[in-house]
């Protein structure tokens, strides 16, 4: 058992050696309500491999716990390479940001974060005369966690504008153009834009974290991971609310032939294959709602008339996102929210002109639901940096 009371005060949760979306929060999600109420020590001591999305699930735990006044402590890994990665990616700052109201309740395990590293966290290292765009971006701390908190409309708009302009800087474009299979400018225009506009639309949210990292995948290859997490309502719940109000979730037609072969785990789909023009109804399961959330023309928001004009929600954002990620860049999309997880990849079979086929692995998990919504894209790179 990896959960133990290390002292009378802190309940130690020893996290597994590899931190992924599934693994990291799984341990925490299995805590009983009584254990959840006690101060928790999320112990990274054994961690040897991390994934940005996995670390982000820890941020969601911190945010959820701090909102209800529960204390959380993080103990740093023994592996110096992992510690270095946490520092370089600004994970500690992100942890402090998402725990904002309860800042003092976030404690770093003693003696594991040398003071000079804390200083380094506050001030990025000066730019070295590095010769590659990738190295320079690392020097400038481009990758890693960036957290925004927002309360009002202008702040929301500025989150999207800031990140989009960050991702279309000349160095970033040069790096993306040389590393990815296609035009790097599409990352800012489609991937970053759609990930963030999706995140800020979830009701009840006030924090959004974006992270990016280049991770080796073995045999000299690597992938670029971009994760966006928000602490708004679970996107499945938003769709369910629309259905409860007797509203159709389809706001526009889906004039596309995209089909999704579903592999399920922990639930039973009604069909092995779903088409993008399928519209869920109140008999649909949460897993089906999650899948439909990415279909074109599906939205939880109705059209509305303001005093000055009539506006219509557009339901093509996540559709454009998965197509861009999978079809253009050959990558994958992962969505983790509530007790559901969706992993979407392209179907290897040759597709006919005009039809797009995907494989969707949809899992129903047990334990505490994940707080907020976490979307992760993974893009294969042409070569390791």
């Amino acid at each position, binding site marked *: 058992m990896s959960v133990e009371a290390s002292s009378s005060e802190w309940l130690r949760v020893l996290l597994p050696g590899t931190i992924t979306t599934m693994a990291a929060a799984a341990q925490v999600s299995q805590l009983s309500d009584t254990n959840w109420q006690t101060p928790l020590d999320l112990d990274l001591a054994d961690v040897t491999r991390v994934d940005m999305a996995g670390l982000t699930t820890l941020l969601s735990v911190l945010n959820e716990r701090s909102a209800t006044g529960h204390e959380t402590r993080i103990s740093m890994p023994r592996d110096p390479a992992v510690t270095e990665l946490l520092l370089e990616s600004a994970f500690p700052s992100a942890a402090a940001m998402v725990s904002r109201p309860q800042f003092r309740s976030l404690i770093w395990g003693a003696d594991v974060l040398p003071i000079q590293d804390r200083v380094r966290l506050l001030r990025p290292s000066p730019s070295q*005369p590095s010769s590659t765009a990738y190295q320079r971006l690392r020097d400038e701390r481009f990758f890693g966690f960036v957290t925004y908190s927002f309360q009002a409309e202008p702040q929301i708009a500025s989150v999207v504008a800031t990140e989009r302009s960050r991702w279309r800087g000349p160095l970033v474009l040069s790096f993306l153009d040389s590393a990815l299979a296609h035009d790097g400018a599409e990352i800012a225009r489609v991937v970053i834009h759609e990930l963030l506009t999706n995140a*800020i639309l979830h009701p009840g949210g006030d924090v959004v974290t974006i992270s990016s990292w280049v991770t080796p995948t073995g045999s000299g290859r690597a992938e670029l991971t971009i994760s966006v997490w928000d602490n708004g309502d679970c996107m499945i719940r938003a769709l369910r609310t629309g259905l409860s109000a007797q509203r159709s979730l389809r706001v526009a037609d889906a*004039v596309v032939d995209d089909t999704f072969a579903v592999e399920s785990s922990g639930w039973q789909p009604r069909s092995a294959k779903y088409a993008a023009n399928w519209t869920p109804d109140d008999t649909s399961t949460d897993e089906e709602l999650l899948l439909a959330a990415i279909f074109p023309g599906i939205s939880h928001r109705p059209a509305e008339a303001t005093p000055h004009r009539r506006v219509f929600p557009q339901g*093509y954002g996540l*559709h454009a996102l998965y197509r861009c990620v999978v079809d253009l860049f050959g990558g994958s999309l992962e969505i983790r929210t509530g007790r559901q997880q969706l992993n979407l990849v392209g179907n290897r079979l040759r597709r006919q002109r005009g039809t797009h086929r995907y494989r969707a692995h949809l899992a129903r998990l047990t334990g505490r639901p994940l707080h907020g919504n976490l979307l992760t894209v993974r893009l294969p790179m042409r070569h390791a940096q």
Partner: protein
Amino acid sequence: MPSSPRGPWQVETEVVRVGTLVSEPVDEKRRKFHEWLAKRLVKTVTMRRAAQFTRYVPADDIQNSVLPSTEILGFTTSETDRELKIIDCSGNRYGDLGENFLQWVASCATKFATRAEQVSVILLPSFPNTEFSPFWNPIIDLPADSGTVIVMNKAGDLERRGAPRQFEPPSRKIFQAKYRELNGGPGQDFEDKVIRRIGHFNISEQYCSHFFFDGSRAVAELADLLHEKITSVAGKAAARTTLIVPARTDPWMEQAVTATAGRLTVPWIKWPMDAAEIPRANEGTSYMFLVDFINTGATYTTVAQQAREAGYRLHRYSVAAFMSRDCHVEANGLPAVQAIKQVAAERVARDHCDQCKLALPHTDKYRDEFAELRSYDAWHILTSVGWDAESYGPPVPKRLRHFPPFTEIFDKFGDCLAYKLELIMQEVAPGAVIVCPEEPAVQMLVRRMQPWAEDRMVAVPLPREALTRAEGVNPSGVKRIAAGTGWGRQLDHLSQRQARVVVLDEINASNETAQQMLHILKAFHIHPRAYTPVFNFVPAEQLDEVPIRALYELPSPRRVWT
């Protein structure tokens, strides 16, 4: 009575802008371009309705993934006419056009192409990706008995869907030239974003300069131009080239070089300050120097000579971002320099530098946080032009007999003045809309600022005649004067959106114009964040509760002279 189906094509146009806060007038050049394009595509045309004002989708709506109904396009249709609609989105950067917006544009276009004699033309900077963009969904499946949708990009490429219709596409070359004239290209964008800053710059041990060419806002454009230049001068050999920059290179140049090297997949190195640290040359590699600014040519000559002596195989050409017009280095037998932009450097030997004699401190190239003009610069600007009688602005009896020609001033110093005004605007109201008199000089200044704000900055020019008429009139009277005018419509939008506003003018001689502008804004319940005249002859902290932030202040000559 509707015209016969064989009559001329009835043309209507709309210009759509994304991310701006308010609509803007569409200029005559763009309307002419639309007419030219329509004629090329369908031969005989009548302009039924040409766009007068842009339709805009504000940034908030884009972030919230909501769009207006297609009714915001003021197109009309009939049962019988031959109709051609142009939806011009070319004034936007492609990176700002999200997929939801593109899908919306496509569905607008198909809505007006439902029968054989209807054609919709969409102008975009680039074609949306055919692999994944929902833009193509409504267009690709247009039935053969529908109308025709034509999509064109900045290169003049043309995609046609729907009813098969014989077209003779316009000449790509002419189309490209017209498109660039309206929307700019990398060369023009670079020019627009370079700032010739004014101050006291220490350029070498022997020389000072009153100006410094700052490329920090044009890194992306510079990277594009360097890439273009290197591939044009080195051809296929570009792939086997290592790029070199001198040790003291401005950070913006290093960034542009890194980006260019990344795109060319070639390495770049920094040439050491100390000749003892020069690395050994690689055999089989050719080297090319990239320099931020060649002024006297001394640094360039030194490093290029060092490289040659150390056995480096140098390329026939070096590339400089900026090069002084009076500098000639070819005579030394070193690689010839290809400059992206040739400039008048106006350097002065330290012994003859007036600013040194006055003991004025040197300006920090990288951290010039002093937004206002120094007296030295203000008077340099004012005395470098010939003064004449005031030719526009206040009524004739109130005009000054000697007045600086602001059109000439902004032509010469507009980039630097705009840079300083923008520093102030960033401080008092980032992303604000500018309200100014409808006069040539100040509008020139606004145009200088627009490229830096990613073309999202909008100005509301108030005509002089309206300023005078509205004086002393109550708010409903002001609204009556504004009714049906472009500026009235713009102010209405700003008022509804509670947008941030800054009032700008070239000179404040007596507070009169400023008060007239504030009076009109008040009628629309708009309270500006600041009033920013370039020169202020009535120094004060605020005017009618609006803070004043001028670039240079001195007491009013008008009061003395009249």
